[in-house]
């Protein structure tokens, strides 16, 4: 077994991993391991923008961004961390621009910004232009820019290495074990500090905007090594996924004036969020859509609605809303302007639906999109492993895999790209600094054993279960019962079903017994991760007897701050899930009812 040694090892090469790599590699020997080529990472699928109170074309302040994020989180976000992120946002976005990121521009040559759900002028309560964007491929441009800078700075990459295990020695992180896809060989990466930046796990659900690769590897590995997962019941369903396919249609469509329409031709968000309407936060809009569909107002009675960005409809509602451009003129748009601002969305609709959004509305439904929960960290990116926030030395997490928590019970659009830039950077700085003052932990003699056992169990399985069948049954039960709306009985069913599937998973059969690019084997291992995370998600959700943010229960419809203003921690111990809780950090903002 080949052993490598670096001071800092980063697992994952999306925005958070690459930002961490740029900073860690300045001061420490650093390597990035990624199961995909870095530019294939899911950061590249982010569309609409990255939030920062730059105030390019109207008044804005980091304090407003902070309050909007706290409110968006339904008061479950830690306010010190949110304030840190929103303050850091402004220099971080300028830093990306200095790295060459091709943001769209205002007529004055500044970074262009658009409105996004939940981001407001705190005085007028109206939407504010806070989402800095590069057309509707902002994530693509962030990912490309960071990868380009990594090339410039000679960052060391091990591409197509799938990390399977974390090595823990003396309660500190000591390395990771990874499979080299091209050979099937296990490698040990011995390190002083490890940063997990492995992304999310939306593949638990049937309809999702998430990539095949989004299988929650980082959280699953951490759970198996005794590290808890935080706030896993909070998973964001983005309101506008393409019907049946789940492919994301950016909230930027509504930022550019698009509206949601039901089967009666009604712009129904008026009734649910009278002030910001279609630009309410995502949990609110997804629930409104569900209620419309349950009331029989889905299009042709089916489980979808229309998202309409045709210029006539945009202009009609912009006039009704009295919407103005930042210069004070009335907001009116044209097909050409929409094409220039949303080229990829128009392309997706034409390719997958044969619909041109400039002439026709888009059929949309809520789609599983983003994990608010994840590996608990503090504001430095250090992983914390209990209700007292005890740090595990040498282990860091950043981006979607982490739960700082800046998103609480519901993330605002544009804050995921911001999260990965800010916390990627700081985890990189802090990991390198820690590594400089720490020594390598001695590696255990059998460091690769647990990884080998997991893979061999899949290779030598003699049962007749098919991985795909198990995965599909998980996705269906989770989408039905641990989705936008939840009730006790349904979640209980989901827990039992996932446990049954985990039992059946012991009897899966992998046909490919080769070494080279055995994607079947590694896909099966990924499904085992999703099963663990599905169980943790359903168990955490079942226990939380209130409605907050993305966790909406029919049987407990109100938020309950007296009993439930606290973070969930879930441990996997001896095949069981143990739950614990820890307090939310409140600083300036008293929890209030959320109205948009």
């Amino acid at each position, binding site marked *: 077994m080949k052993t490598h040694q670096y001071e800092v090892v980063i697992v994952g090469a999306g925005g958070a991993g690459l930002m961490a790599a740029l900073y860690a590699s300045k001061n420490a020997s650093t390597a990035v391991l990624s199961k995909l080529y870095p530019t294939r990472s899911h950061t*590249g699928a982010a569309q609409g923008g990255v939030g920062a109170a730059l105030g390019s074309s109207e008044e804005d302040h980091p304090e407003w961004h902070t309050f909007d994020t706290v409110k968006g989180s339904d008061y479950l976000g830690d306010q010190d961390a949110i304030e840190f992120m929103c303050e850091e946002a402004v220099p971080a976005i300028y830093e990306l621009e200095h790295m*060459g990121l091709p943001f769209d*521009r205002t007529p004055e040559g500044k970074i262009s910004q658009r409105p996004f759900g939940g981001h407001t002028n705190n005085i007028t309560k109206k939407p504010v232009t806070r989402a800095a964007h590069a057309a509707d491929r902002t994530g*693509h441009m962030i990912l490309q820019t960071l990868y380009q800078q990594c090339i410039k700075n000679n960052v060391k990459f091990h591409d197509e290495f799938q990390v399977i295990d974390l090595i823990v020695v003396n309660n500190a992180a000591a390395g990771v074990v990874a499979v080299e896809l091209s050979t099937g060989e296990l490698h040990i990466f011995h390190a002083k500090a490890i940063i997990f930046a492995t992304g999310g796990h939306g593949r638990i659900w049937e309809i999702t905007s998430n*990539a095949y*690769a989004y299988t929650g590897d980082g959280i699953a590995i951490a759970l198996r090594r005794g590290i808890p997962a935080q706030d896993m019941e909070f998973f964001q369903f983005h309101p506008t996924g393409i019907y049946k396919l789940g492919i994301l249609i950016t909230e930027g469509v509504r930022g550019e004036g698009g509206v949601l329409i039901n089967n009666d031709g009604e712009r129904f968000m008026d009734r649910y969020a009278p002030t910001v309407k279609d630009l309410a936060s995502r949990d609110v809009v997804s629930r409104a859509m569900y209620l419309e569909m349950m009331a029989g107002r889905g299009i042709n009675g089916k489980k979808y609605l229309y998202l309409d960005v045709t210029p006539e409809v945009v202009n009609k509602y912009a006039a009704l809303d009295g919407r103005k451009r930042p210069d004070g003129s009335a907001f009116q748009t044209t097909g050409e302007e929409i094409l220039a601002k949303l080229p990829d969305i128009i*392309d997706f609709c034409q390719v997958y639906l044969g619909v041109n959004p400039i002439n026709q509305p888009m059929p949309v439904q809520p789609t599983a999109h983003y994990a608010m929960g994840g590996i608990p960290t503090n504001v430095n990116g250090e992983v914390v492993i209990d209700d007292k926030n005890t740090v595990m030395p040498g282990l860091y997490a950043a981006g979607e895999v982490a739960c700082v928590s800046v998103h609480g019970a519901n993330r605002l659009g544009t804050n995921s790209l911001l999260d990965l830039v800010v916390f990627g950077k700081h985890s990189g700085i802090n990991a390198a600094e820690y590594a400089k003052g720490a020594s390598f932990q001695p590696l255990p003699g059998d460091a690769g054993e647990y990884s080998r056992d997991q893979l061999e169990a899949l290779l030598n399985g003699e049962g007749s279960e098919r991985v795909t069948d198990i995965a599909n049954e998980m996705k269906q039960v989770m989408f039905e019962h641990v989705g936008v709306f939840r009730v006790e009985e349904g979640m209980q069913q989901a827990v039992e079903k996932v446990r049954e599937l985990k039992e059946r998973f012991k009897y899966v059969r992998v046909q490919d017994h080769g070494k080279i690019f055995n*994607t*079947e084997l590694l896909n099966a291992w990924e499904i085992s991760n999703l099963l663990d995370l599905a169980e943790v998600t359903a168990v955490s959700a079942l226990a939380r007897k209130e409605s907050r943010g993305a966790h909406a229960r029919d049987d407990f419809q109100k938020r309950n701050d007296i009993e439930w203003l606290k973070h969930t921690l879930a441990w996997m111990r001896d095949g069981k899930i143990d739950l614990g809780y820890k307090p939310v950090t409140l600083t300036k903002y008293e929890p209030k009812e959320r109205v948009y």
Partner: protein
Amino acid sequence: MQIKLKVFRYNPEQDKKPKYQTYELEAEPTDRVLDLLEHVKNYVDGTLSFRRSCAHGVCGSDAMRINGVNKLACKVLVHDLHTTKIRVEPILGLPIIKDLIVDMEPFMEHYRSVMPFFVNDEKPPSKERHQTQEERARFDDTTKCILCACCTTACPSFWANEQYVGPAAIVNAHRFIFDSRDRAAAERLKILNDQFGVYPCHTIFNCTVACPREIEITQAIGEVKKAIVTGRLD
């Protein structure tokens, strides 16, 4: 509808030479070719190997030759092909590792050779560097590249000589050469003013046809050639 899916197969651990395997399966006209490959892998033959991730044309993992033309398997629907016989093969000109998976390293090496990163060592302002909307639009098209390799592996000049940097590398050089904020255009033009730089491009347009992001690649290469000849970036 009933589809005959003919797939290039090669497992270096077992096969002396490549072969084709045909799978008959039921598909919807709106299924992606990637969905068909997933179906085969999940229900028929788990050993079939290919790369994929986002499944909607933005990550660039699943470039392959579909009925002889380079495409992303996730961006081609069955009905787009106007036939029930679908042939899927690896992209050409890169070493085949297994089935539809090729070694991307020679492609990435060419990409890295053209300084595909922003260079400006002047002290930045405290806020953003200003850029007009026209200056930003000048290189918009080439910022869309996802490094899928559809273009380079559709290029006869690249098939003829793997030392040619290829269209994708030139596209990524173009993205910086024409960025008003960048300061290394001259160095990139010098790199591309080479027998394996822009000159093997004979404006065949295969690259432009192949690009799943609809980048006007031949035009971009033409603009780089012109800048080399004239020494000007307008």
